[in-house]
């Protein structure tokens, strides 16, 4: 009863339009109670769905991943495998070989499909490694500050000061080629930028009043980190990691093109381009087709990252 009293005594005359809208329509509010509970991620998904480019990217990535995962079921092994059919070498595009064949008679479409497995794996694994290292380093630097911050961030500066591709090549030269080593080399060298992004995200979140508010309520450090700091700083990492997958695919392609990455006859998109470039004048599809695969996939990851950045920004109104 007492509560009602206060509610009624509230001064009426001066209400902002927003307040009037918020307070007045009781019938509208009934509709809301039946509406589904809106969570952060469902909101983000709703915003993402409006972004056509991002949705096309999602669909494209889904198709590429699906093809890569199910390739064994429907791609004839003899076409993509190491078998050489020299009579069929460098055939132009046809119904039998939609992307043509390469210099030893292998079907280029099948090789591009099998290549997607390696390229995607490198992209995802390398990004996973950089993200884990980057998150730990960034969090340590931001939480503990002081000496930790100085040491970690100067280390990151040192890593960033080296030319990236050269650094990866040196690491691969030391560790030897092979797909695991490519994961590790690209992944380990990618941490400084993620650490920087995460550190600055945490620092900017930490200075907010709601962190002080949580502390003044008596929240534990664990609660503040998991409920307040992490949810508010993770969006930038999701965005950055998505874009980073495209970057890692590109790096792997460059390495393979330079002969330092995946070892033939394993097909990766970079190796296909390297194989094809010798025949650019006579059989351009050998290079163009895997090139298109790289461009479309990397672009899709970048555009998706872009869309995610907009979708995860809670301050975007008209949600």
């Amino acid at each position, binding site marked *: 009863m007492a509560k009602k009293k*206060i509610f009624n005594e509230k*001064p009426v005359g001066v209400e902002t339009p927003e307040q009037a809208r918020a307070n007045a329509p009781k019938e509208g509010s009934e509709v809301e109670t039946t509406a589904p509970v809106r969570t*952060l991620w469902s909101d983000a998904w709703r915003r993402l769905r409006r972004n056509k480019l991002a949705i096309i990217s999602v669909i494209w990535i889904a198709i590429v991943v699906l093809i890569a995962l199910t390739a064994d079921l429907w791609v004839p092994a003899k076409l993509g495998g190491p078998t050489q059919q020299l009579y069929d070498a460098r055939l132009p595009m046809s119904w039998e070989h939609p992307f043509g064949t390469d210099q030893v008679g292998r079907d280029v479409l099948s090789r591009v499909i099998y290549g997607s497995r390696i390229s995607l794996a490198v992209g995802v694994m390398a990004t996973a490694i950089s993200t884990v290292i980057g998150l730990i380093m960034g969090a340590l630097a931001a939480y503990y500050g002081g000496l930790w911050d100085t040491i970690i961030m100067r280390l990151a500066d040192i890593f960033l000061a080296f030319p990236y591709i050269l650094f990866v090549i040196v690491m691969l030269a030391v560790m030897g080629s092979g797909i695991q080593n490519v994961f590790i080399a690209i992944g380990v060298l990618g941490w400084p930028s993620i650490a920087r992004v995460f550190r600055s995200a945490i620092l900017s979140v930490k200075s907010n*009043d709601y962190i002080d508010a949580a502390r*003044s309520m*008596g929240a534990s450090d664990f609660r503040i980190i998991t409920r307040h700091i992490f949810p508010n700083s993770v969006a930038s990492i999701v965005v950055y990691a998505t874009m980073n997958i495209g970057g890692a695919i590109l790096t792997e392609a460059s390495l393979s093109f330079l002969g330092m990455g995946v070892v033939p006859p394993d097909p990766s998109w970079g190796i296909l381009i390297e194989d094809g470039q010798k025949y650019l004048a006579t059989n351009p599809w050998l290079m163009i087709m895997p090139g298109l695969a790289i461009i479309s996939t990397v672009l899709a990851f970048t555009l998706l990252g872009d869309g995610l950045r907009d979708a995860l920004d809670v301050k975007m109104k008209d949600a």
Partner: protein
Amino acid sequence: MEQDRTGQKPLLHVEHLTKEFPVEGGVFNRSRKKSVHAVNDVSFDIYPGETFGLVGESGCGKSTTGRCIMRLTTPTSGKVVFDGKDVSKMNKAELKEMRRNMQFIFQDPYASLNPRMTIGEIVSEPLVIHKVMPDKDERMDYVRSLLDVVGLNPEHINRYPHEFSGGQRQRIGIARAFALRPKLIICDEPVSALDVSIQAQVLNLLSDLQQEYGTAYLFIAHDLSVVQHISDRVAVMYLGNMMEYSDWKTLYAEPYHPYTQSLLSAVPVPDPDLQRNRKRIILKGDPPSPINPPSGCRFHTRCPIAQEICSKEPMPELREVAPGHFCRCHFAAPKPIKESSVEL
């Protein structure tokens, strides 16, 4: 609202509270360690159910005082006794228990609510932290009733802060502060980020809630007219020092300290004739840097009645110039403000 406080135990007792922030000298003069005296020897009591106003220019240490009491920053020295226990000596568990009874309302309603949490999660967070009402449905019902009390639509419980206006957000902050029915709420400029019309609403809400629940407020503001609306007693701070404090009627009617007098003479009066003709005391210059405070009385550089003694002698003590009226000035003398806006 003159009340007899004899025999009553203060809820909050602040004694000689001092907070210094070290200032790094930079790369080239590391050796010269300096510090900012943000709060200097501040003492006051707050009794259950009353509102204690703390006013001063920006940078005078009023917010730092509030944060020291809450232990959001650790004071350099001095005593803060809340409910009979010294806050500065509390361990983690005691601190958590203390924070159940002392809550904070922040100045910026845009920064003080976690944008990733719904209103329901925000308002119920203190309940979750202190494990009051473990049942979620019961908790959410309680949150709805709280939202109703602060004048928000309870159906908005699943909305996010960015969907609300500044005034509504401040109401959310108030609901959160009241969720545990604390004994003391530190309001750090709760209305200065709001429009004037919304300010009045929020102030009325705060005083209604105070009458309802008997909560004490430490009300920090830079606006004398805002403080006047809500406070029982008012203290004026300048450069980290408390210059004068008294119950609000005496302070507004008969300020003793020249700084208070000049502040009050600057409050606009609604009557244009009075406003044009009244005598204003205008202070020269800016407040000095708290890194290098002036010698003697810290106010002497801008004081209209300063004498030689003010810069030579150390800072005068806070002395009782009238019953319950304390002032820190060598020449403390009452100066009735007849044409002030205060209705007596």
